[in-house]
């Protein structure tokens, strides 16, 4: 690399936040968060493949306040990444590329992700 002193783009201090830019970095952030969620999924499977005691301890951690909070945040991340991923597929097919469409579809993604998350959790508690 040439010089570490060179300015980075975009200048985050002067860059006005917009729907498209915020949702773009959110896609990346939720993707990284979901990696942790995928590791916990494997932890759950390994616990189920292990002993009843191991499974019990996993259930205890997952069912704690912090565990449930993490699961809720992961659900939100998953729904957002899923909905926004579908938006990305539309872009890949050459659709929704106008600024106004990108903004509108982004707002729809945020609303859909929030609604789907709440619906999933209500359904889970009803099913229990």
């Amino acid at each position, binding site marked *: 690399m040439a010089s570490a002193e060179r300015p980075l783009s975009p200048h985050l201090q002067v860059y006005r936040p917009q729907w498209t830019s915020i949702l773009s970095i959110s896609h990346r952030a939720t993707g990284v968060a979901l990696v942790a969620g995928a590791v916990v999924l494997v932890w759950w*499977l390994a616990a*189920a*493949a292990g002993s009843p005691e191991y499974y019990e301890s996993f259930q205890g951690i997952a069912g704690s306040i912090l565990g449930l909070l993490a699961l809720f945040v992961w659900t939100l991340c998953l729904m957002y990444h*899923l909905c926004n991923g579908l938006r990305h597929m539309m872009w890949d097919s050459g659709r929704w590329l106008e600024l106004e469409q990108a903004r509108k579809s982004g707002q729809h993604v945020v609303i859909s992700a929030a609604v789907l998350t709440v619906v*999933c959790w209500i*359904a889970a508690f009803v*099913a229990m």
Partner: protein
Amino acid sequence: MSLRSPLATARGLGSAKSGTHHWWLQRVTAIALVPLVIWFVISLIVHAGASYEEARAWIGSPLPGVILICLIIAAFHHAQLGLQVVIEDYIHAEPCKIAALLIVKGGAFFVGLLGVFSVARIAFGG
């Protein structure tokens, strides 16, 4: 007008020497993950509050077991492709970048394999 030689154009590998392979695989795994994730979320809701035995019976039955393995493979493949781009974007010191990439690639392979092995162990009655 293109500055590429006819051979380079025909190969279509570009400056990264791998063409659209990375980009394309990220899309392929993403498309696979759409139905897999929807199935998984609905299954989790249906099995909310399941006991150890109930959870094992579900994980170990043929169709859910195979779909779970598909989900694990697609998810970890997609995850390491995505993390690779994040690392390449933000880590510029070559040794750190290579170390981070090796950790992510190896870690994704290991944890993914752990998930597949766990499903198989439950299914085959370990």
